């Protein structure tokens, strides 16, 4: 039996669906409870590759969800991962903007997560407030790698246009191949949205953060921070 079939099968027998967290064109995300222990898990089913999830399997990082199982078959992917208790930045932004110190703390955590992701040769490609959860116990966690991909050396452009409008870097629109710097672009936008509630093209964050955002969101990837570490240093 393939792992994919095994995973989808034992979900029915060993787990029970609590609620659907997200449903879109590419797949669904459900909250699952283990029948024996009552522990909560997140199950993702989507069209695409689970390669990035597979690389993350068994990896322990406080800023990334634990991936317990990742399998794919016939272009469909199934992933069982840790459930992160907390609110997304998107939800928190509905209440109020983040302070500079809060933003720095959250972004630093996201940078740590991206650093791990990039070290595995992967790009997230969908960094946005909805995909950053602040744990109830403290610390930010980057989730949702459905749009992420592995970087192919020598590739000229992405084969699929994915990402979220406003956060996706220009090269994600088929103009070039996205790499780690596409995440830096989105991270710059995220910083700005956390501080101002608006996209950098509408209102730029003031002061030092504004300069960081500006450098992150340069259209030419070569003009952005070269890697996440540089951005963390700037922060």
């Amino acid at each position, binding site marked *: *039996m393939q792992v994919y079939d*095994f995973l989808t099968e034992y979900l029915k027998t060993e787990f029970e669906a609590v609620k659907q967290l997200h449903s879109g064109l590419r797949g669904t995300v459900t909250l699952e409870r*283990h029948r024996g222990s009552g522990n909560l898990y997140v199950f993702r089913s989507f069209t695409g590759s689970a390669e990035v999830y597979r690389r993350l*399997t068994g990896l322990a990082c406080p800023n990334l969800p634990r991936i317990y199982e990742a399998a794919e078959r016939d272009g469909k992917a199934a992933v069982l991962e840790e459930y992160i208790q907390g609110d997304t930045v998107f939800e928190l932004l509905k209440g109020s903007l983040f302070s500079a110190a809060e933003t720095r703390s959250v972004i630093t955590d996201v940078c*740590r997560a991206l650093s791990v992701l990039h070290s595995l040769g992967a790009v997230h490609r969908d960094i946005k407030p909805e995909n950053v959860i602040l744990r109830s116990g403290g610390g930010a966690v980057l989730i949702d790698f459905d749009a992420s991909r592995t970087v192919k050396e020598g590739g000229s452009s992405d084969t699929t246009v994915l990402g979220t409008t406003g956060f996706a870097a220009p090269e994600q*629109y*088929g103009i*070039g191949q996205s790499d780690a710097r596409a995440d830096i672009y989105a991270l710059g936008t995220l910083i700005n949205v956390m501080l101002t509630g608006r996209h950098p093209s509408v209102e730029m964050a003031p002061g030092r953060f504004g300069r960081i955002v500006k450098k992150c969101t340069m259209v030419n990837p070569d003009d952005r921070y070269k890697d996440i570490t540089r951005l*963390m240093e700037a922060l």
Partner: protein
Amino acid sequence: MDSTDKTVKKCINCGRELPEGASFCPYCETSQLEVRTAPVPVIRRRRPLYALLAACFILIAAAVMLPKVLDGATDEPQTQVEVVSAAELVELAPAEPGPTETEPAVTMAALRKVEEPEAEAMPAEPESEAAEQESEPVESEPVTAEPKVTEPAVAPEPQPEPAEPAQAAPEPEPEPAVTREPEPADEPAVTGPEPVEASQPEQAESSAQLLWTDAQVSGGQAYVNYNHVPERSRSMAKGQKYITAFLYNGELSEDGTLTAGGDVSLERIDRGVYRMSMNGWNGGTVTYSSGGAVSTIQINAQLPELGSYASAEASSSGFISSFTVSESSNVFYLAFRDDKAVTLRRVTGVRIDPDVYSTYFTIEPVTEGQVYKVTVDPTFNQTYNGTATVSFFCHIDDIYGSRDVLSNVSISNSVVQPFWQP
């Protein structure tokens, strides 16, 4: 699952059967993989830089303060007073009940008494301990007033110094005399306006900063736009701000009447926009000269009688960074590059030469000022073939203010074709 099946393994915790490759046991919730700890990114702290700066500051401060301290040591015997007071206060304290009033008298008296034995002791060892004196200048300095023997050892450096300026003083005098003599001799002999030559390096440097953006030719007249890079333009000399002359070179067609040195007139239409008039010109490489700044543009124009269509490939091809296709059949994205000289505010329209095709294109912002989505009507492929210039109406801010310009990109059928293929 059959336990003999090679594609089956057992859970490391509960022993239940799992498919080979499974990394999680759903029964006992145990990971079958060894947990790896994520690598921690190494961040270069700026503290070393701060420490270095602090160290530099301390060194500079020390360099500034040390001579003063050394000089002051001769005038301020307070350090000795402390030593002295410890010895002398015991003897003098009973005689002087008033502490605050008597302390100065005590210390001065004690100082004299204590300095004398030290000063006497020092001359006893000066010649034999020249090396020590070098290493203990503070102690030897107070003594310098009394024995002349110690002076050369204590202050060998200050004494040569006054001598050196005396030697150095005559040196600068002959030098200017030598250097000034050939300069006036060269200036009048070779070039009269030497001061102009001195400013030419700036002009040469700025030449690369004046970039053409686009040009349009219509009815024998060319409208040319160019950019200044503000950072550089600030350092430009006066008179460099505007195009002052056109030069040209390149081969012209036989029916083009313009020859080298021919009649080209230039009129300033707007800031950054000039109208160039010519007679029957068929294109070529145009160079503009503004003082020492030079920039070139390649203009390919059809003769007026063949149509008022022209395309231009400038050394700076407008603000468009890329013009590439997405997977969508008739949608492509347009990215504008960051330009220090220009801030793109919005794109208001698109035009394909000739204008009749404009209705087949629609443009909408994805990220205003950066990325735009262009949709091509699928029926466009039935009416269009060949190469054309796509012009985007852009509203920009630059050093000349807020204004509308055209930014062009040349496209060919082979490039664009995939966009509207059904």
